[in-house]
């Protein structure tokens, strides 16, 4: 037979353990939500659209006719696939305006000042990026 004191001590230990576990779980849940928020912000389609459109526009502005430039766009292409956008339609160039589209109701455009003929070609060997062929504007 256990004494009254021993039972009280055991109950107290049980309470402390349960409280600590709940406390740790709540902390983990809280931190997980925070991390999910950060990751979702960092890899948001709108952010990637803007980033890649500006990056490509600057790249073409600085390019010379005859150059072929490869750009890794793995993250953007993965998002486009999830959103149901064809990988070959992610980047379009009309006149001197680059448009990157990763969502059905989205897209970001930015212009470049280099008067060249730039053509985007999806890299079918890796499915991770685009080749940009820069030629003289006829």
């Amino acid at each position, binding site marked *: 037979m256990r004494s009254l004191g021993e039972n009280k001590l055991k109950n107290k230990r049980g309470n402390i353990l349960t409280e600590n576990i709940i406390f740790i779980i709540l902390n983990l849940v809280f931190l997980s939500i925070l991390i999910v928020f*950060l990751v979702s*912000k960092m890899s948001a389609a709108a952010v990637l659209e803007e980033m890649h459109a500006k990056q490509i526009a600057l790249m073409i502005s600085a390019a010379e006719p005859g150059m072929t430039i490869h750009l890794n766009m793995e993250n953007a292409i993965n998002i486009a696939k999830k959103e149901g956008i064809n990988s070959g339609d992610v980047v379009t160039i009309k006149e001197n305006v680059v448009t990157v589209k990763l969502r059905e109701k989205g897209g970001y455009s930015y212009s470049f000042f280099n008067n060249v003929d730039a053509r985007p070609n999806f890299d079918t060997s890796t499915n991770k990026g685009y080749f940009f062929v820069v030629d003289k504007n006829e």
Partner: protein
Amino acid sequence: MNKKGDKLISVYWFAILFIVAGGIVYMVSAFYGKPYDVRGAEADILTTKIARCVSEAGYLKEGVLAEDFKNNLMESCVINFQAEDVYDWREQGQYYVEVEFLDFDTKQKIFEISEGNQGLKLDCGLEGEGFPVCVERSLYSIDENGNQYKINILSIVRKTEKNVQ
């Protein structure tokens, strides 16, 4: 007493956690909510392009001093200042470039070529994100007769709406 104290610490712990998380959420939202400002890089590239167009390896390129070059800077340097058709950008003009040729010894201006929206020049030197970005560079060059030139290039890019919140 101890148990009460523990609970009190937990409440404070969560309060601190919420404050820290709130701070992180605010900072991340502020950072990713702002557009990337690439105007500085764009103006730098434009300046480099103009510099390469007028001078190569320290020598003035052939035809730079000719009237044809002065009248057709855009064609000669393969530049197109037509921006995308948003925020009235096409009507306003989002770029300006000015190239000054000075005598290297006397510093007297020989001639000047400019293209784009001249009004943007007025905003150069003003502090604040809402103004156009101006990049000014100088280079030294000589022509085939050995005449020395100082070339000042001023490039301005506006595009404020897509680069500043």
